[in-house]
């Protein structure tokens, strides 16, 4: 038995245990221990590691093998699952069960997701890949459907998307088989780049559609926000952190490893007007900008974060497709970084929901006084999401910006900056409407979230901070992933990058930053440090004294001035497109039903027979 077998068996057992004893109080501990052990096994696994099992189907071997690229994603998966499971361990899980929801299903589905993803990430051929892909999709569906009526509806909306994606991948799979005669990834690496351009374009379209759906790339992103946002908290964190990254994993395999980026640049459309690579870069850039600005309009904290999840995936794909050492490292590192702070942010939003019962950004405020640790988590989380130092989000985004500038993509760079601007605006709205301003009367009695929920959140932001200060810790694994994909490997130091094309040392930056804070503090306290604590209502605004019912801040219609300018640009085109597709489908369906409801089938039969015979005889 190889250590990959052990890893998968442990996941299988956790899944079984989750479905049977998931409601037991000890389960989260057990699962936490197993997940920690799995992380240990995975991190210390020599690569590439083949699985001891496998089978032959229709004369083709189906097997599993973990390489550096898969391991990078697998580590994040296990880590995200660990945080989510730990979060359910105390009050949150008890409340969940008390609401009449099924904790066993939640845990089983969560562990099942991990298993499915591990199978996907370790696939050694396209059949194993497709098995993992489908299992991931349906395990994801199961997890999404857990949160009640609205969640079920959102999950049902995911079904056509997921299925369309899976079928596109299956179509690509059989075409690959037809054209190359093999499905083994190690052989395909050599065979696929040699295919004719139109074949590559078709493969790109089919596989790309499948991966884009999972990733939530424009224009097939609509399912993701409600499905992720409406799931129960721990599930939302897991889904938001890693689930949709499986699409990126697919893109990595397809674009970089199989088709290769140089062949991708050869595939030109409309007389060389643009190449497939340009196309993907621009799709990624649009995926950064449009969902980020959609997030700006959200009034539900969960939806806001879910939209950002879509937007951030654009950075990852963009970095990967630029494909130089810096850019691809940035794109891949962003997967890890995003997982850490996104999970922390989601968990903090659900911690607030746990206490206040709402995620509506218009009915909260001032909670910093009651939930300071949760505030801290969200603060550090949004710093990461916005891509500012000292958090890790800064490092990956810096690498991507840097690479865009060096590789000469000024327009794309502009798009990423625009995206970051939108991110900063909307995360400020998030933290302001939740924690700043005045505490509402109904939230006077709120307490801090329980430790069972705080610990995973704090651990996640701590991780985001540490890997922000010392990105070298994560970049080791990124380098392995780059090597496994055949990308140029970015040399790095503990604090960041040291290269003639630009250096970044986070140790130094954070040192300066904190030195600045320290000097400020010294000045403040040296000057006497006078401060006075006053009640929130002991204040005035615009000459008016405040009371509990006259609030100084209005969270409703937050960016009124900005929205006055850009508001008309939101047209809901994608939603309309989706609705149009559904209508077309419905129309076709009623036409087809008309065939089965015809009054005199014999007549149509006669006509068809005569036509058929005529065709047979005179063709």
């Amino acid at each position, binding site marked *: 038995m190889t250590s990959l077998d052990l890893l998968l068996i442990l996941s299988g057992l956790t899944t079984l245990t989750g479905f049977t004893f998931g409601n037991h109080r000890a389960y989260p501990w057990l699962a936490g221990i197993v997940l920690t052990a799995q992380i240990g096994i995975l991190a210390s696994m020599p690569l590439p590691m083949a699985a001891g099992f496998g089978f032959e189907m229709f004369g083709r071997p189906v097997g599993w093998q973990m390489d550096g690229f898969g391991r990078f994603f697998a580590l994040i998966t296990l880590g995200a699952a660990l945080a989510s499971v730990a979060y359910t361990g105390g009050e949150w899980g008890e409340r969940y069960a008390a609401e009449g929801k099924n904790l066993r299903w939640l845990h089983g589905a969560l562990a099942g997701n991990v298993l499915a993803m591990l199978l996907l990430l370790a696939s050694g051929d396209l059949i194993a890949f497709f098995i993992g892909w489908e299992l991931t999709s349906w395990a994801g569906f199961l997890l999404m459907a857990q949160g009640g009526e609205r969640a079920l509806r959102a999950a049902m909306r995911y079904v056509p998307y997921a299925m369309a994606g899976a079928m596109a991948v299956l179509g690509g799979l059989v075409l690959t088989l037809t054209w190359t005669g093999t499905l083994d990834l190690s052989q395909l690496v050599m065979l696929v780049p040699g295919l004719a351009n139109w074949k590559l374009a078709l493969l790109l379209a089919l596989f790309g559609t499948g991966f884009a759906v999972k990733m939530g790339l424009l224009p097939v992103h609509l399912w993701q926000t*409600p499905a992720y946002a409406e799931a129960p908290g721990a599930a939302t964190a897991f889904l938001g952190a890693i689930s949709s990254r499986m699409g990126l994993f697919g893109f990595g395999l397809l674009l970089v490893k199989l088709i290769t980026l140089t062949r991708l640049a050869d595939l030109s459309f409309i007389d060389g007007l643009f190449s497939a690579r340009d196309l993907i870069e621009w799709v990624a850039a649009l995926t950064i900008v449009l969902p980020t600005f959609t997030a700006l309009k959200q009034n539900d904290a969960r939806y806001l974060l879910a939209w950002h999840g879509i937007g951030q995936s654009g950075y990852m794909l963009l970095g990967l497709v630029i494909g130089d050492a810096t850019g691809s490292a940035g794109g891949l590192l962003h997967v890890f970084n995003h997982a850490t702070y996104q999970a922390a942010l989601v968990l903090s939003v659900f911690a607030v929901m746990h206490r206040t019962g709402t995620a509506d950004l218009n009915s909260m405020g001032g909670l910093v006084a009651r939930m300071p640790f949760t505030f801290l988590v969200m603060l550090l989380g949004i710093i990461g999401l916005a891509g500012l130092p000292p958090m890790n989000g800064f490092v990956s985004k810096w690498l991507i910006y840097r690479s865009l500038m060096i590789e000469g993509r000024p327009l794309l760079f502009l798009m990423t900056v625009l995206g970051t601007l939108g991110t900063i605006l909307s995360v400020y709205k998030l933290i302001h409407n939740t924690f700043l301003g005045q505490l509402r009367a109904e939230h006077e009695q709120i307490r801090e979230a329980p430790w069972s929920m705080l610990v995973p959140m704090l651990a996640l932001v701590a991780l985001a901070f540490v890997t922000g200060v010392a990105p070298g810790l994560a970049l080791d694994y990124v380098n392995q992933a780059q090597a496994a994909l055949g990308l140029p490997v970015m040399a790095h130091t503990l604090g960041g990058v040291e290269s003639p094309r630009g250096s970044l040392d986070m140790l130094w930056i954070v040192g300066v930053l904190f030195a600045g804070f320290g000097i400020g503090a010294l000045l403040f306290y040296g000057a006497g440090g006078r401060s006075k604590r006053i009640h929130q209502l002991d204040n005035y605004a615009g000459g008016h004294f405040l009371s509990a019912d006259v609030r100084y801040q209005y969270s409703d219609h937050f960016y009124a001035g900005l929205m006055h300018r850009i508001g008309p640009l939101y047209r809901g085109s994608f939603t309309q497109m989706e609705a149009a597709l559904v*209508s077309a489908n*419905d129309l076709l369906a009623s036409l087809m*039903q008309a065939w089965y409801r015809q009054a*005199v089938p014999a007549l149509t039969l006669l006509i068809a027979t005569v036509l058929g015979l005529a065709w047979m005889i005179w063709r």
Partner: protein
Amino acid sequence: MTEFTLYTFLAASLGLIAIGIGGVILSRNLFRIVLALSIAEAGGNLLLVLIGFRHDAIAPIIEPGRTMTTMVDSIPQAMVLTSIVIGAGVQALALALAIRARASYGTLDMGIMRARMEADINRVAGAEPAASLHAPARPMLTERKA
């Protein structure tokens, strides 16, 4: 019987089939539909018999003491016998169904019966009748988000 007669019979059999199919298509009355079906089948059987027919041959029965002469092909005749039996059974079944259905619905009109059947199926299933595009099976998946 000459070639001419053979062709006449051939035309007659095809004509019977055409009349039968036309009858099935044009009539709404269950009984007429059954009649039309049996006419069409008669045409088909006649055609089958004609296939094996030779005007200078005798019946394909070997009797002791008879000299071997040309016989008509026996296989189509065997097939026709089978086909006639099956056809008779099916017609009896169709008639029985028609009688039963008339007892329940009080009519022999196919159009009315179809509508009643449709309504019955929907009632048993507890589903609204199929109407237009404005009444989909379930609220569509697109839930507008502000």
